[in-house]
């Protein structure tokens, strides 16, 4: 067969676009009656996030379960498809991993660990509390494909290791392996050391580099709530709680008007500044994430203390809160927020990101948010707390009953009427 030239392919593409658009006009309506073959294929495609041929080997088992009215089991078979992890879970994680919130984000340590937690059926709360991470087992990478895996240069000081894993021929679902103990860089010795405050994805390179770069370390709090509580900042503003934790860099008289602070600025800052002490030792610069409790002074002693950015712009309101350690206060339990977040367990005192992650992960809202995330991911449509609160709460409880299994949550949610219709 002759090699088809680029010119021919371009011409063919034009004709093909035309044909595809005309075919789109002739799209048939969905079948009204339940057809097990069709439903099995739809379920597999929903969970794998990809189209599958009618001859796909998983389809007979899925169909058999559907015929027996065992939809949950059918969905369980569908999660065996490699693209459940390689596409559906990966894209959900990528979207949550950075400030841009897009699936076009480069593969990173956040997504790798997320995939690993789902694959290995770990308790989803460890996403915010775990002292582990997932990297590639290079022995499982197909021959001929290079995945750079030197810990300092390719994992801690760059995203190279993970971006190398974007190669289509690498099955992420197979090559990822857990590493106990998160490792970060001790820059003066240029060695990796154990993370003194490991908190799963919250202390991943992707998350810290996105949210603790420059700024004042309020953004890690904001995005933790945004991604894991499905609660953007304007959702949790509460002007009725104490403002004693609000930093010195926040003007109490914006434009000369204290009322504006009291009724507007304060609402978000009470919650955000209350929590931000948790991240006070974290920073991202020179391409690596760092924690002051492992960084060394020139004399070899631990740097300790907090990042200077926590106490920047001291002249704006000198009587504001001065951060001296990684303690934090949960101010999201005032009248406006207590019922919404459903805090559980001991909330005081809190120190560091791990404690912060535990409070988030143990809340009822975290479970509800995971239902929403999984629903959006598998069903590819948005579900809101305003419209579907009872749905989210119901499946959140079931999610908790499974031991916070995201894989089983996918199974449950993907076959709900809300997802299918």
């Amino acid at each position, binding site marked *: 067969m002759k090699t088809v030239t680029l010119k021919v392919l371009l011409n063919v593409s034009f004709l093909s676009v035309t044909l595809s658009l005309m075919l789109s006009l002739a*799209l048939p309506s969905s079948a009204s009656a339940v057809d097990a073959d069709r439903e099995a294929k739809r379920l597999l495609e929903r969970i794998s996030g990809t189209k599958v041929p009618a001859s796909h080997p998983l389809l007979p088992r899925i169909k058999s379960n559907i015929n027996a009215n065992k939809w949950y089991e059918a969905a369980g078979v569908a999660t065996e498809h490699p693209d459940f992890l390689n596409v559906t879970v990966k894209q959900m994680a990528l979207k949550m991993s950075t400030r841009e919130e897009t699936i076009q984000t480069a593969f990173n340590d956040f997504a790798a660990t997320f995939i690993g937690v789902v694959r290995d059926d770990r308790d989803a709360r460890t996403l915010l509390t775990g002292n582990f991470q997932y990297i590639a087992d290079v022995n499982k990478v197909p021959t001929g494909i290079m995945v750079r895996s030197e810990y300092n240069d390719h994992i801690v000081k760059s995203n190279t290791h993970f971006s190398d894993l974007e190669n289509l021929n690498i099955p992420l679902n197979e090559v990822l392996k857990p590493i106990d103990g998160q490792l970060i860089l001790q820059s003066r010795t240029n060695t990796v050391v154990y993370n003194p405050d490991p908190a799963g994805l919250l202390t991943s390179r992707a998350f810290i580099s996105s949210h603790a770069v420059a700024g004042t370390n309020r953004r890690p709090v904001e995005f933790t709530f945004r991604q894991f509580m499905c609660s953007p900042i304007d959702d949790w503003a509460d002007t009725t709680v104490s403002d004693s934790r609000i930093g010195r860099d926040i003007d109490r008289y914006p434009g000369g008007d204290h009322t504006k602070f009291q009724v507007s600025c304060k609402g978000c800052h009470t919650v955000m500044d209350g929590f931000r002490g948790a991240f006070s030792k974290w920073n991202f610069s020179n391409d690596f994430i760092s924690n002051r409790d492992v960084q060394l002074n020139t004399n070899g002693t631990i740097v300790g203390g907090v990042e200077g950015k926590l106490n920047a712009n001291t002249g704006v309101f000198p009587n504001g809160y001065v951060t001296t350690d990684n303690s934090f206060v949960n101010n999201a339990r005032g009248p406006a927020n207590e019922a919404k977040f459903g805090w559980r367990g001991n909330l005081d005192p809190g120190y560091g990101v791990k404690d912060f992650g535990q409070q988030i992960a143990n809340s009822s809202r975290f479970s509800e948010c995971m239902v929403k995330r999984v629903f959006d991911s598998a069903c590819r449509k948005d579900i809101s707390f305003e419209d579907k609160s009872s749905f989210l709460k119901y499946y959140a409880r079931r999610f908790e009953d499974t031991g916070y299994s995201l894989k089983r949550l996918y199974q449950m949610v993907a076959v709900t009427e809300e997802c299918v219709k």
Partner: protein
Amino acid sequence: MITIKKLKKPMFVIIVCSATMTLFMNCQGSIDGFSSGSDSNGLTTIQSKIENQNYTIQSSDQLVRSMASVTGVDYASTIINEYNARKALMTNDYSLESVTAPMLVSIANLGSQFCNELIRKEVALTTANRIFFNQIDFTKAVSTVTDAQFNQTLDILGQNFWGRNLTAEEKSILNQGKLEFINAIPTGSSTSAAQTQYLILSTCTGMLAALEFITL
């Protein structure tokens, strides 16, 4: 050789422009020369079908894996190169509203690479061992491909790509495409067996780039 000029026949231009604008750009306004008649001939129907059925468009990652899955073609370097060159143009939020004309062309280009590999793979097999193109004799001129052979091929592609047989309307569109294709072949090339490959390539690509395939 097929030329773009010959493909730019009025009907095709109207369909491409109006369908693209109406379906994917939410452009309901009148476009000189194209607005008359187009909205009343099915375009609004497809729009309402899309709205009712809650479609989302597949991302680049999903599409490339979907195409590999249904064609059974491995990720050849030509495919990976095409994918890497085009993926930035594909959707980043699954929304049909994010679809653009360059995105559709990119999807078709990616699909053409898969179809090209698929044809190459099948041509190397005996007719009896082929899965997709056991009705097609790639050593003969395109004029020897009968309607029956072509329609059977469409059903095979439909089952594998879309999970169903094509409707009569869809077959009619693709048969019309075949006719247009053959009519566009320059004199002197009509007996070339290569044109048979090109016909199958364009048909296969068209089906991989159709809404039925690129949405979930």
